């Protein structure tokens, strides 16, 4: 394409066709003020502050929406331009309140900055008084529309970025305001309080509401969100050692300027008064504050005694899918080379390993095969067993953008209604736990109707014949019997899926946390292989991760069967290589997985455990049994930010720093390695986990020679052969540009990191026939099927989110959701406290009547510590992946007796 040359302030500059004057000016270092413009939003030219003049014809152009044309002679600073800009801003100020002195937006207000830059001084126009503040009852943000300048940034953020559409312009002329449907307050609208609009608002019209989160920050640090697996980049704005505000990162390639309510408002857990400030040692039934010396001595002595008396295999370590890569690397080194055990696992076992094994055995690559930005290029997206709006909001935004802006089609497979149901072209509601049959049914239609990509199947896969044979029984009619999804819908879905040239599959814990989770993932992989949907742009499989570093903790070897980089512990050469480096001989026996550790602890085979950043008492199934097992240990060390339910059982509790207080890296669900940077100092005596592990190793007489997380990652990179990480090699954190490095990877690397160009790591992929196995018959006393899941306002089992003041204030109760018919049948009312019982246990919750679940179905979010939902689950493991089935169980509801 021919570059376009224009004259800009007397200088010749060139840009590519289609570029706007503003873009070219910014590229050339010419500053043009803007108010309604933002890099992430579609330009609309609403504010007119960016006016420039074309000298040839005297036209005044809004530079943000005017494309460059050859021969233009643009003045950005002529007297006429400045005068016009002044008028525009003065008009805005004429209807803007004079509350700047006390407005919390203060020095961040872009209107005020521009007014000052343009030297407005006094407003000479007649003032138009504006209506007063609209008070909202939510704890997150406050709208004061008298300060609104109608730039539509919030509207575009809501409609185009997060695709919720809670607000749009209402009325016209002077009466115009951004309003919700029916003018209701935000909490009664579609608004999810993602905070994207508040971060974009140039004036004080949208602001943080509560006291400690106001004011101007002194420092801003760009880091990575600690909640879900999306890995959004966030900016921590700190003042006097206090994080006042969290806003979307500017550079983040994942979230593109968006965040969710957890990212924007949930990080205040770091200032919870419940943070642990000193190490605690149990004595005579209670905890006593101790110094690090005493605590580490006690820990070292405890582990040493057990190791020497019973051998390393009687010790186990639970690493954390919330901690950094470096910390997990150090932990597994500690476990293997110091404690002498391979029994190290991490919390992602609970939801992720079925996916790893299922994909690994078919595709030969055990993770998401493409980038989030490519998901937006898809023609068809199949979302199965996932509610990304709650569990991975950035992914949901991408899906909705693909639908609304690029016309992608959506097939949703979910028994429960989610936000995506409204966007779906086809919404299949199978019976819980029948995914394998449904996916096989889709494959069967595709094979029968000849819709498969024969070339891809022939060239890149094997075992197709056996697979096709295995599908024989899954006719739409039989699948209808099993799943309850009408055969016609199955046919329609299969056709829609197969006829799309770029199809992507997104799955979540609704697939992996069932007893046959591994098989369901295989069935999905088969479906992808059938239509050649791996390795093309805009297609592939997206395995959602529940936690920020689920991928990274596994990559780093916090797994019982693998050393860092998935090198098997059975591989003598790999063991030797690491052993030599660490100066120790490593155990060769495969260790225990997370749930097996609990079993072994209750049987007495495991005597000591080191739990880092996990809360198994709440997050594992069978809370009572877990509590008993951990309580029976001779020695339990828990390292956490809070005195969690698990920490209360410990002999020694070590206070850990939060993500905002340490350096390192997280790896998101795509496999993208992103930096975590320290914004404030850890409170009290708490220390970053990596430092604690290093100190502990030293105390145990085996010092590890690292002085910073960077050195740890350098070593991991050297030993791991994981391409995504190698980008960080030798690069100082401070300089590392996560985004550009990541792009470098996608351009140059072919192979393990991503399946590009259809190149499978082993050269070909393998169809794995899977059979549907009916779930166990529901017991008669338990007429309901209970599903568990996430809500947007809490996270995980709530160890952190329940300590976020704002999230808890907004969503204080844990509820059990049921449909109206069921509520009438068992005569319970909205808001009534009921007992929820399953064959394995019971809990209590408040009834919430909703139309999102169908008859006979209950839904409970897992995240409230007051309502330990996992009490309801027995420990039933997927045979291969050892994932416990904790997505659904049978249940009944009982009224709490009033006596």
């Amino acid at each position: 394409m021919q570059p376009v040359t224009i004259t800009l302030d007397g200088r010749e500059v060139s840009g590519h066709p289609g570029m706007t004057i503003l873009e070219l000016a910014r590229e050339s270092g010419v500053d043009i003020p803007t108010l309604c413009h933002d890099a992430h939003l579609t330009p609309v030219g609403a504010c007119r502050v960016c006016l420039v003049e074309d000298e040839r014809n005297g036209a005044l152009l809004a530079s943000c929406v005017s494309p460059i044309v050859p021969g233009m002679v643009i003045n950005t600073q002529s007297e006429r331009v400045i005068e016009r800009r002044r008028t525009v801003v003065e008009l805005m100020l004429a209807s803007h309140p004079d509350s700047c002195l006390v407005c919390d937006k203060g020095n961040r207000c872009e209107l005020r900055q521009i007014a000052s830059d343009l030297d407005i001084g006094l407003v000479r126009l007649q003032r138009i008084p504006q209506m007063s503040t609209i008070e909202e009852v939510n704890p997150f943000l406050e709208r004061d529309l008298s300060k609104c300048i109608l730039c539509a940034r919030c509207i575009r953020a809501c409609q185009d970025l997060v695709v919720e559409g809670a607000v749009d312009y209402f009325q016209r002329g002077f009466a115009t305001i951004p309003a919700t449907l029916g003018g209701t307050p935000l909490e009664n609208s579609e608004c999810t309080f993602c905070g994207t609009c508040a971060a974009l608002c140039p004036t004080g019209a949208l602001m943080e509401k509560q006291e400690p989160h106001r004011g101007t920050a002194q420092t801003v640090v760009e880091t990575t969100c600690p909640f879900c697996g999306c890995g959004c980049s966030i900016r921590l704005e700190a003042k006097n050692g206090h994080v006042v505000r969290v806003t979307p990162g500017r550079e983040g390639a994942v979230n593109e300027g968006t965040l969710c309510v957890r990212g924007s408002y949930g990080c205040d857990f770091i200032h919870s008064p419940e943070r642990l400030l000193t190490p605690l040692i149990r004595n005579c039934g209670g905890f006593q504050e101790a110094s690090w010396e005493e605590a580490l001595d006690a820990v070292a002595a405890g582990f040493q005694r057990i190791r020497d008396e019973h051998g390393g295999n009687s010790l186990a370590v639970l690493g954390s899918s919330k901690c950094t890569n470096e910390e997990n690397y150090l932990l597994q080194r500690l476990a293997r080379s110091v404690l002498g055990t391979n029994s190290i696992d991490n919390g992602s076992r609970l939801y992720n390993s079925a996916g790893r094994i299922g994909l690994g055995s078919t595709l030969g690559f055990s993770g998401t095969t493409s980038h989030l930005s490519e998901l937006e290029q898809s023609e068809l997206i199949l979302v199965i067993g996932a509610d990304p709006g709650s569990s991975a909001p950035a992914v949901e935004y991408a899906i909705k953008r693909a639908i609304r802006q690029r016309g992608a089609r959506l097939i949703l497979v979910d028994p429960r209604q989610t936000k995506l149901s409204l966007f779906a072209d086809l919404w299949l509601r199978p019976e819980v736990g029948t995914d394998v049959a449904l996916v096989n049914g889709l494959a069967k239609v595709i094979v029968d109707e000849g819709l498969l990509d024969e070339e891809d199947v022939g060239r890149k896969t094997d075992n197709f014949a056996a697979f096709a044979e295995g599908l024989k029984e899954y006719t739409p009619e039989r699948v209808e019997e099993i799943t309850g999804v009408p055969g016609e819908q199955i046919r329609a879905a299969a056709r829609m899926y197969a006829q799309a040239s770029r199809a992507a599959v997104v799955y979540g814990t609704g697939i992996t946390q069932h007893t046959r989770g591994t098989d369901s993932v295989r069935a999905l992989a088969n479906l992808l292989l059938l239509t050649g949907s791996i390795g093309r742009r805009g297609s592939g499989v997206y395995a959602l991760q529940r936690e920020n570093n689920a991928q990274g903790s596994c990559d780093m070897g916090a797994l019982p069967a693998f050393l860092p980089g998935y090198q098997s512990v059975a591989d003598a050469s790999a063991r030797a290589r690491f052993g030599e480096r660490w100066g120790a001989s490593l155990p060769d026996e495969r260790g225990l997985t997370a749930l097996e550790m609990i079993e072994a602890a209750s049987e007495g085979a495991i005597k000591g455990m080191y739990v880092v950043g996990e809360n198994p008492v709440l997050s594992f199934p069978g809370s009572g049994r877990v509590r008993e097992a951990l309580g029976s240990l001779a020695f339990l060390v828990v390292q956490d930010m809070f005195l969690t339910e698990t920490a209360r059982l410990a002999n020694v509790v070590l206070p850990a720093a939060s993500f905002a207080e340490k350096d390192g890296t997280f790896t998101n669900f795509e496999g993208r390695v992103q930096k975590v940077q320290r914004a404030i100092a850890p409170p009290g005596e708490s220390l970053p986990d990596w430092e604690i592990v290093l100190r502990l190793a030293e105390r145990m007489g085996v010092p590890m020679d690292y002085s910073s997380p960077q050195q740890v990652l350098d070593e991991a990179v050297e030993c791991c052969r994981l391409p995504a990480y190698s980008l960080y090699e030798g690069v100082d954190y401070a300089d590392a540009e996560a985004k550009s490095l990541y792009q470098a990877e996608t351009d140059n690397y072919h192979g393990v990191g991503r399946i590009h160009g259809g190149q499978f790591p082993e050269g070909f992929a393998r169809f794995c026939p899977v059979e549907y196995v009916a779930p166990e018959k529901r017991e008669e006393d338990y007429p309901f099927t209970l599903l568990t899941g996430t809500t947007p306002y809490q996270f995980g089992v709530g160890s952190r989110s329940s300590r976020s003041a704002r999230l808890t204030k907004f969503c204080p109760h844990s509820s059990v959701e049921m449909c109206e018919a069921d509520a009438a049948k068992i005569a319970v009312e909205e808001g009534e406290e009921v007992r929820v019982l399953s064959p394995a246990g019971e809990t209590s919750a408040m009834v919430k009547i909703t139309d999102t679940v169908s008859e006979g179905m209950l839904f409970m979010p897992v995240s409230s510590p007051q309502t330990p939902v996992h009490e309801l689950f027995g420990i039933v493991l997927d045979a291969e992946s050892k994932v416990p089935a904790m997505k659904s169980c049978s249940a009944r509801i009982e009224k709490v007796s009033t006596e």
Partner: protein
Amino acid sequence: MDEPRTITESDLARIGEIVSEQSGQKWAMIPLLQRIQDEFGYIPPQSIPLMARKLRLFPSQVQGVISFYTQLYTEPRGKKVVRVCRGTACHVRGGKTVLKLVKQQLDIGEGETTPDLEYTLETVACIGVCALAPNIVVADHVHGHMNPKKVELLFKHREVGE
């Protein structure tokens, strides 16, 4: 008096029918809004989510469009719309008083609708028949040379009815 303002199930079903007949393209919004308004006299707010779904827009966007056009209404309108001219010629010849009288007769203010949904009162800037000033338009019929007597006559049957 029964409550004419509530939208019944069958009304909603009818709206659903109208919506489903329309093209799902965005440009179909205005014709769709007009059809609903033609049939119901206004656009019931309950129909907004139905239309939004069909057009693949957000309810707030549909509401935004409705609120932009003064001739789209989200509240029920009277069977007869009374438009009192407030143009210059009518003003000079006592249009202001005519408006006052009409307000008294109908017992409603500007932009309001009588509770029995018979009349909606509006003002217009000029209807173009200044020769007949002062004018009012009732249900698209122009009544010229208005005076207090004629205003009373126009709405006389109402008092009798009540």
